[in-house]
């Protein structure tokens, strides 16, 4: 799949933002006055910036409000509702904390659950797609949630929970790559089933429908980066998981650890899109 910058920014920033929001709303760490303004501000800016970035890849962003209508069937619509609800609940919780110096704990729990539900809805936009076998698996949602929780723990300064969650997310990421690499082959969808000609012999794409690229090949048949996949995966693993975990063992390194984690997650999300193979590529003799 084409790794659109807007989608990489969106999934990374809003994932971390909602992860942070979940921790803050649970009272981890307990915050008051200016510290609360700073941390909640950071979480709202990240979550909000991600959501705004996501509208940049729309053909008609001015119609974005229509996306709230189809929550019964569409994960994208559910995500819009959950994100709005999470931001509203967290906003009320933060306002009470900052202006009235009151912690409304149940509202915080609700906001935390809604924040994580938003991340889950985001993950399901990808995991629901049978056409992209690499994504069509429980590990996609698990990984999105694990990265949001790990990033949230890290940004809220919960050193030991952060180390455990980051390492857990790293193991999950490794598992997702390990199993994802063979999921297209395991899906059973091949050029033979795509054309229905498999019973007659070996099917080979002889000639494409046109000499140039088209929307489908640009959007879904992205092959440029795959040759460096192993190197990119290694760098991303080090940046997103290894460096932050080691830095958290030392004092006064929180912001450095957060920066490394952010860079690593951006790379992971780039790979998430760039490595995903859409079955339509088979029709073009590619994957």
């Amino acid at each position, binding site marked *: 799949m084409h790794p659109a910058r807007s989608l990489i920014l969106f999934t990374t920033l809003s994932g971390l933002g909602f992860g942070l929001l979940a921790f803050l709303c649970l009272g981890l760490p307990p915050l008051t006055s200016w510290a609360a303004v700073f941390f909640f501000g950071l979480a709202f800016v990240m979550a909000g910036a991600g959501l705004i970035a996501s509208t940049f890849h729309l053909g008609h962003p001015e119609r974005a409000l229509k996306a709230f209508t189809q929550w019964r069937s569409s994960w994208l619509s559910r995500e819009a509702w959950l994100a709005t609800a999470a931001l509203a609940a967290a906003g009320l919780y933060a306002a009470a904390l900052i202006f009235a110096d009151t912690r409304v704990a149940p509202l915080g729990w609700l906001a935390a659950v809604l924040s994580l539900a938003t991340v889950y809805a985001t993950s399901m936009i990808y995991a*629901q797609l049978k056409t992209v076998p690499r994504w069509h698996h429980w590990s996609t949602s698990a990984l999105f949630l694990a990265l949001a929780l790990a990033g949230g723990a890290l940004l809220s300064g919960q050193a030991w929970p952060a180390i455990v969650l980051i390492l857990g997310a790293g193991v999950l990421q490794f598992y997702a790559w390990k199993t994802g690499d063979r999921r297209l082959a395991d899906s059973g*969808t091949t050029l033979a*089933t795509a054309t229905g000609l498999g019973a007659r012999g070996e099917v080979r794409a002889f000639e494409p429908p046109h000499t140039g690229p088209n929307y489908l090949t640009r*959007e879904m048949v992205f092959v440029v980066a795959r040759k460096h996949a192993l190197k990119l995966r290694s760098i991303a693993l080090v940046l997103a998981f290894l460096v932050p975990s080691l830095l958290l063992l030392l004092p006064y390194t929180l912001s450095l650890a957060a920066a490394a984690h952010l860079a690593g997650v951006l790379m992971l999300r780039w790979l998430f899109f760039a490595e995903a193979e859409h079955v339509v590529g088979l029709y073009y003799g590619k994957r």
Partner: protein
Amino acid sequence: MTDLPTHTDRSLGLVIDLDTCVGCHACVVACKGWNTENYGAPLADADAYGAQPIGSFLNRIHSYEVQPAEGPAQLVHFPKSCLHCDDAPCVTVCPTGASYKRVEDGIVLVNETDCIGCGLCAWACPYGARELDPVEKVMKKCTLCVDRIYNETLPEEDREPACVRTCPAGARHFGDLSDPQSTVSQLVEARGGIDLMPEQGTKPVNKYLPPRDRDIDLLAPLLEPVAEEPRGLLAWVDTALGKL
């Protein structure tokens, strides 16, 4: 709502004959022409005369080589457009309700004024049947020429999709696939019509008729060589060269 209907009154669709398609792309041109001048946003081309032309099409013709275990390879031209699936994944993922499947005839359509151009429906389609228009930035797809098939201002013989009407080889057929008595259903029955990517669970309405088995050496026995041994001058050259 983008929930799929549990039942459609009819299942209009295409039956495409891979045995007779000659790969002339006339259906592609007819489709582009009709759908540029009629219902919905025109099918645009960007940079049409430049170095990187790219355009939206609702119908594209691939060509595949099939190499059997024995015998020569066969070339199969393969037209592909929206299959108007009964379990259309493109419809349910749509966040705005722009994508829908009609209850009365099963046609899958896009309400272009509701489309936000997010592209998720194109991702959900395994067949590559949806393309985002490069100029209008809304999702385009085969409408089964919904503005032709019910259009009483057209002569009756033109009330079928433009691709079907134009095909010079008679490789495309249009009709109601939910009616077992329809010509298209009988064609599917007689020729063993198949679904594309059945494992994706989309339940496509459109069916493909596989190439017929044939003895491609049909005429060869009638063309036995008539001059096994050279005679006259050639016989002399043959013996002279053989002695060298």
